[in-house]
């Protein structure tokens, strides 16, 4: 009994190794697959990190139209210019000139001081500063708005103090700011774009190249009608398990290596957040990779030709990114898309990795994500065996 069992294991392992070896040689002899598995993950993150490396927009260009031209307006301008976010590139005589600068993309915002600005201040009326912003870039708009608000708060305080002659310094302070406040950005303190986007992007890159690769490999077997070479394995009852595990092991090996590069080397080189504990990341990556692999094998049912894998899967990257709740907050995703998002490993993978890597969570904090991935592994594994079986049988007929 035990001997029979051992023999079975041995046969299983040797079949598994054969499948593994064949898949390995398929991968390394196929330039297109090598591009997907190696070149894309090597180069893509570097270019992305370089694009977003400045993290935030600085010195957004602004022009000023100063109809008042008083000491107050000049001080306001100087204070804006002194902030790191805004750069006053010029003073225009009138609005038309300023709009021309916007049209020529020499500036992205206009600050206008009306003629009665100082007058209003002197007569204790509201004095308005008008701010116009080009909305083709939200980051610049944010720079202008935050800076102008900040500067106005600062000047308001000064004006109040000035008007309060005879008060003690302490009284001045208390009455201008009865409540103090401080803001703290948890995780990603610079509010940087790279720190926000790249960790999720890396996880998505893993899933997308992996499933395109798996579908392309399966598609090219279909093309050449070579699926039947695996047929002998299917004779035994556990054959499809062996095929699946053999292939999965091969992909796992490649992507285990790539993950080290993507999740360790890239964040280190580009100074991205890296709060996660290495063991937590490894423990999380294993189920994520497995889920991606089985998911890829499952959807390979739709791909009957190597080339269509690219066409049908490439465009989904953006959809996966938005549905995962990273770039568009999860609470704002409608319920129907949210429920669909649970079908994809990337949803749990992105969320989980961002939590570990950027927010320092540990595995117990990621119960939802881990359970989600486990369920996906089981379900997609069953589907994957069915797909392989279906493919082989169809070719035999």
């Amino acid at each position: 009994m035990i001997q029979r069992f051992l023999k079975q294991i041995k046969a299983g392992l040797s079949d598994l190794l054969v499948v593994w070896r064949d898949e390995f040689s398929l991968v390394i002899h196929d330039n297109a697959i090598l591009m997907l598995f190696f070149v894309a993950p090597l180069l893509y993150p570097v270019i992305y990190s370089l694009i977003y490396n400045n993290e935030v927009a600085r010195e957004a260009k602004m022009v000023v139209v100063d109809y008042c031209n008083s000491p107050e307006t000049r001080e306001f301008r100087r204070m804006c210019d002194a902030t790191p976010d805004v750069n006053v590139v010029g003073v225009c005589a009138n609005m038309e000139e300023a709009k021309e600068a916007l049209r020529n993309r020499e500036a992205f915002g206009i600050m206008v001081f009306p003629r009665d600005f100082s007058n209003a201040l002197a007569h204790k009326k509201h004095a308005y500063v008008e701010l116009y912003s080009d909305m083709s870039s939200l980051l610049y708009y944010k720079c202008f708005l935050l800076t102008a608000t900040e500067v106005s708060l600062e000047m308001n305080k000064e004006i109040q103090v000035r008007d309060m002659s005879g008060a003690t310094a302490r009284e001045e302070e208390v009455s201008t700011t009865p409540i103090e406040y401080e803001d703290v950005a948890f995780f990603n303190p610079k509010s940087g774009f790279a720190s926000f986007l790249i960790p999720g992007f890396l996880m998505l890159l893993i899933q997308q190249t992996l499933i395109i690769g798996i579908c392309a490999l399966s598609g090219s077997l279909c093309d050449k009608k070579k699926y039947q070479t695996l047929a002998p394995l299917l004779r035994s009852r556990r054959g499809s398990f062996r095929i699946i595990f053999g292939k999965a092991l091969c992909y796992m090996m490649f992507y285990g290596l790539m993950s080290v590069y993507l999740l360790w080397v890239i964040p280190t080189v580009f100074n991205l957040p890296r709060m996660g504990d290495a063991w937590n990341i490894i423990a999380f990556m294993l189920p994520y990779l497995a889920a991606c692999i089985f998911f890829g094998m499952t959807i390979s049912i739709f791909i009957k030709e190597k080339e269509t894998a690219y066409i049908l899967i490439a465009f989904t990257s953006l959809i996966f990114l938005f549905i995962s709740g990273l770039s568009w907050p999860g609470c704002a995703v409608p319920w129907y898309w949210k429920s669909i998002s649970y079908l994809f490993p990337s949803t749990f993978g992105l969320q989980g990795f961002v939590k570990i890597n950027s927010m320092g969570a540990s595995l117990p904090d990621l119960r939802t994500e881990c359970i989600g991935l486990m369920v996906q592994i089981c379900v997609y594994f069953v589907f994957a065996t069915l797909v392989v079986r279906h493919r082989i049988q169809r070719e035999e007929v």
Partner: protein
Amino acid sequence: MKRECKRIISRKLYIFCLLIIPLFCLFFFLSLMNEGLPTEIPTAVVDADNSALSRRLSRQLDAFKQTDIVLHAKDFSEARKLMQKGEIYGIYYIPEGFEHDVLSFRQPKVSFYTNNSYIVAGSMLFRDMKTLSVLGSAAVGRELRLAKGETMEQAMIDLQPIVIDSHPLGNPQVNYAIYLCNVLLPGLLSVIIVMLTVYILGSEVKEQRSREVLSMAGNDIFTLLTGKLMPYTLSFMLMATFYDVVLYRFMGFPCNNGLANMLLISYLFVWASQALGILLYSLAPIMSISLSFAAFITMLSFSISGFTFPVGEMPRWLQIAANFFPLRHYFVLYANNGLNGYSFQYAWPSYVALLIFLFLPILMSFRLRQVYLNSVYKA
């Protein structure tokens, strides 16, 4: 051309790429962002004071449209745990003795924390919580001034002598759907156009019929390209028309130079994308390799076009590289014409750039002809 039409009907793949995927993308992004801005972002309030004043403050925070208080915690660690689990995006902390300190002029300090790993949600909460803190401070200041006998109006002016009056041009509500969809959707259409063009050209070689087709076209590569690609051009132009009508008529997104102008830009972009497809296949006539390049370039174009992160903030060489991506020029033209309504003269280089894309395949046509004559398929 007739033959190509038959091919279109014969395969599900073409129907998918020409109809189903573009329509799905349109529906997906418009339904995802139909609110325009994320609303009701879950937040926690840690109220260590639990006084009338502190409760009033947290009620006011809840009243903001973008903020939804899901937890009133007693201590900070509970809220922090939830933040780490990603269930809330911000924490507003009111210290113990808050009310007492306000009343006795001891300047208590409130703190707010945002989770900037999710930048959109984080920055929205930041804005609301900051406004609340400034207003809260102002409210107390107002009471003080009223007590000193000032009128309400006078008190408000004294507190805030300078007011910022902000005008976000073209997108007054700072609507994220307008900001994102107008570039994302054409971009996705172009992903499909480029890849399908590569596939259409490559599949003839793969099926070993390229010589036959070339002789059908009288050995003229231009006749061949026109005949083969025309049905797709028309179909994608139709889809682009549909996109523009939905975005600028049905959704009412800004389109200040008129729909006809936007359609012209969209058509130019469709053609430029097809041209890019032809170019890629001619350069790398192994279909799976050229498709890899196509995927690489089209996906990269979303970032490098600069509609999320401005091109001006990228390293110099990437700013130059951005010009080689059709989506960059589409974005410049859309911002110039659709969003801002500026005239032709301010964005003419981008029109020219898109036109240059149309001429690129001519340079490579001799190569494509060679490929079709040799007719060797490599996987």
